[in-house]
């Protein structure tokens, strides 16, 4: 009987854990992608060309300079890939960055900062629901 109680309690705990992990991996985050000039620590990076953007292997589309786009992603670990585009032709110059988000976080990613290898290319923000 004791064995059963332990098994049942474990099962409930496991189910709750599964619930929490489903919540984490299924949570949708909004990631804003800016192709705009930005000043970080006194240095200003300018946007000068169009980029094609993928988030988590999903094509977001072309971002001309000064533009902003939104990606909706689920889960905690993500990858952003940008590739320089000239006259709608990909140049092959790729940048790839990985980032992690907590369950209630959204993020703004700045393309010029990535291109220039600035440290603060991502700005995470707590969103307590909408």
């Amino acid at each position: 009987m004791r064995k059963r109680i332990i098994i049942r309690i474990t099962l409930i705990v496991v189910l709750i854990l599964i619930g929490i992990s489903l919540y984490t991996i299924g949570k949708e985050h909004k990631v804003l992608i800016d192709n705009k000039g930005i000043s970080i620590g006194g240095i200003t990076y300018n946007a000068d060309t169009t980029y094609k953007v993928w988030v988590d292997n999903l094509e977001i589309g072309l971002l001309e300079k000064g533009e902003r786009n939104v990606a909706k992603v689920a889960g905690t670990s993500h990858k952003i890939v940008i590739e320089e585009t000239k006259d709608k032709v990909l140049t092959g110059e790729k940048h790839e960055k990985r980032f992690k988000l907590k369950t209630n976080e959204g993020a703004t990613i700045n393309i010029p900062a990535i291109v220039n290898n600035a440290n603060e290319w991502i700005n995470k923000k707590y969103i307590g629901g909408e």
Partner: protein
Amino acid sequence: MKKQNLTRTMNPYVKFFIDYSVPIIIALLVAFAIPLSGLSGKYFIKELTIRLSRNSFLILALLIPVMAGMGMNFGIVLGAMAGEIGLIFVTDWLIVGLPGMLLAMLISTPIAILLGYFAGIVLNRAKGREMVTGFMLGFFMNGIYQLVVLYGMGNIIPISNSNILLPRGYGIRNAISLIGIRQVMDKFIPLKIGGILIPIGTLLVIATLCVFIVWFKKTKLGQDMRTVGQDNDIARASGINVEKTRILSIVISTVLACYGQIIFLQNIGTMNTYNSHEQVGVFAIAALLVGGASVAKASIFNVFVGVILFHTMFVVSPRAGKELIGQAQLGEYFRVFVSYGVIAFSLALYAWRKRVEKENERRKVMAFKRVLLQNNNTTGGDKL
């Protein structure tokens, strides 16, 4: 006054036709309507695949209470409500994809268990009229559901997503988009044959449920349910807790219906908060009955025959109506009529048969006794 012939029995062919009259009539109807509708084969197969994967789970949820002798469980509406509450929560929390759907199932399970338990208790108090009670219970709980979702959510139950809340700040909107989990299960294993999406994921889940049901019948609980279903008194006399067994069958059915509704809605992709569940019971039951099931006997086979026949009729009838007298409306009314009519007809047929069979059984026993007497009394010279 009818002549009482104590030894009359029923013709087996007539019996077969009466047993399967519903599927036979619907099959004839469909056979007549398909050419009339002029629908292409591909469209037809596509629609049928969708409907098969969308509805089968819900209909399978009906099987276990039939086994326990509680008839068609009109109370699966309660399970559907539980599923919808789960979906409202995951939509509010912005949980997407397969994890979102699974989480919705996980959250709604305890709700479904509670509702099923409640329904089981109510139905135990209404022995002999489980069906009409289950049906009214569905209506009653719909009122409670409205109070909770329309007035409680956003007020007492925290809901923050303005996309699903009514502009007044509480209560859930009439329709909410389930875009985040739309067809995530159907497309989990992507496969297309000739341009038709085959929802392998969902079909696998349905197959698993079928295996579960077959397995369940072999368990002690399954056997107890069959016993209870056949004869309450004998089951009780042999020490089975009849009430508890009946409640369990309803709980299982409610939980399955809850999953069924989530699967149904992930396929559709939007949810009519206050209407999606209303007709769940009617359509599922009508389909099962069209498949040749009766109040006392239903199998997995009936489920699939039923889904195919019933939904073929659903796809075909508006078009056939239009071709026939130029009004698509006619076909739509027609399929509503068939849904209700099939249930009315099957239930009436079953109730009538129950009486006839009792009478037949009596005659059989009587005839047997006569023979017995004749054999025992051969010395007495009695001639019959």
